[in-house]
């Protein structure tokens, strides 16, 4: 898998590609997010670590406008998400739950996405060929998604998310249900990708081993940001032996209390 592609030149490296400030959200009376704020820079991966139920999916739903933002500010490439659906043009999402249509072929699924994103059919075909080739999936383009295994489906979703060259990519537990070798391959591919294309990636996970040494880390617990920084800073601040222990100390042993 080769993530290389001409680097983007139009990105201001100093301004965050994705920024969140004071974001709060409640489902009825249950508070899911409380004053969440952090930035994700172009060309970097921010790992959003949190146990199940910490609020990661809610946060992603707010960023991609599936949930209405009440309190706080979220900006994608400098534009607030409240400005309208146009801001989503710079954003791609790989949801935790697969969103590909199992009854359509890989190519049909990708062309459908391209059309939703404003690509012409010829642009769509060209882009899907490129992205599938990088993920070694060209030969499966004509196959029904139903016939693919979990790892290949994930690759299709990642290829799809890259079709319109997003500046920001959200990955919500993208490796759930995958075996260890497939996980490793995807993790390293996505890390290379962020650097090669100057893309900002926000990656939600509860698996510490997906964090690379150079990643920025945001730890979410019970809807609050309890730590930000790189691996070294967080481990040192908590006085833990490693990130695994720091994560457990910061998040009540990696388990959220029942809501």
């Amino acid at each position: 898998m080769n993530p290389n592609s001409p680097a983007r030149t139009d990105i201001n490296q100093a301004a965050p590609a994705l920024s969140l400030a004071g974001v709060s959200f409640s489902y009825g009376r249950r508070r899911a997010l409380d004053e969440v704020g952090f930035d994700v820079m172009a060309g970097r991966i921010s790992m959003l670590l949190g146990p199940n139920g910490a609020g990661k999916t809610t946060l992603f739903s707010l960023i991609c406008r599936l949930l209405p933002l009440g309190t706080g500010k979220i900006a994608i490439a400098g534009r607030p998400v409240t400005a309208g659906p146009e801001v989503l043009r710079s954003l791609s999402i790989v949801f935790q739950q697969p969103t590909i249509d199992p009854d359509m072929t890989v190519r049909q699924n990708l062309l459908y996405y391209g059309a939703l994103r404003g690509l012409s059919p010829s642009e769509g075909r060209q882009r899907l060929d490129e992205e599938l080739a990088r993920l070694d999936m060209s030969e499966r383009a004509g196959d029904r998604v139903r016939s693919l295994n979990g790892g290949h489906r994930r690759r299709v979703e990642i290829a799809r998310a890259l079709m319109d060259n997003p500046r920001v990519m959200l990955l919500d537990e993208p490796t759930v249900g995958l075996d260890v070798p497939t996980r490793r391959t995807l993790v390293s591919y996505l890390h290379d990708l962020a650097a090669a294309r100057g893309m900002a990636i926000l990656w939600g996970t509860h698996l510490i081993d997906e964090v690379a040494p150079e990643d920025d880390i945001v730890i979410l617990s019970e809807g609050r940001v309890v730590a930000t920084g790189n691996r070294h800073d967080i481990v040192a601040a908590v006085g833990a032996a490693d990130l695994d222990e720091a994560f457990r100390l910061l998040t009540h042993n990696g388990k959220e209390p029942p809501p």
Partner: protein
Amino acid sequence: MKAVDAARAFAGITRRELLRFLQQRGRLIAALVRPLLWLAVFAAGFRAVLGVSIIPPYQTYIPYEVYIAPGLIGMIQLFNGMQSSLSMVYDRELGSMRLLLTAPLPRWFLLVARLAASTIVSVIQVYAFLAIAALMGVRFSAAGYVAVLPALVVAGVMLGALGLLLSSFIRQLENFAGVMNFVIFPAFFLSSALYPLWKLREASDLLYWISALNPFTQAVELIRFSLYLRLNPAAFGWSLLALVVFIVASVIAYDPRRGIAGRQTGG
């Protein structure tokens, strides 16, 4: 929203609906067999019982098969509208609704595009039905086949919007069968699809009024008159009003949270 982006998205959504329709052969066959069965069996059996008097738009006595043909067209569109609401629920469970709703286009546009795509599918089914009905001897004038198209669009969008509205109130696929029974059958039987309303009035004033106010009756009458190159202003007005009410209500009622909160497993 740029026009070219909107047009591309609409083309993509329509292509997907058509692909799905063509891939589900059972759905295609069921969509045609159901009304044809009514036409071939029910109409033949009941033509003697339910003689139809001369009422507009007819100018002469007509066989019962000819009377119920517009009602069966309405039935195709009603089923298609409910089917598209079923696939809306299915998409929500599958997650592909989230993909649609995170496209960089206004939500109302995406929902209306989805509705329009499903209407195109229903119009194709109607013409396939009309072609087979013609082989069975139920024919209209050549101009009638053209004139009915706008009526099919209005009726298709209206019934599709009703389906979309219902899909907002269905939490899971399992609840859908009940809706089919409580919506499709009453809408069909309490309408002018199978018998003129004056006949129903002979039996019960209440049933007459329910049927007269039923938007499905208005859609059927709109289709019936159009087939004879006549506009029924009341049916057109009521169908259009129902269309607007259903679309606005369904866009307002559409809550993507149902798809997120219901199935959320991660953080």
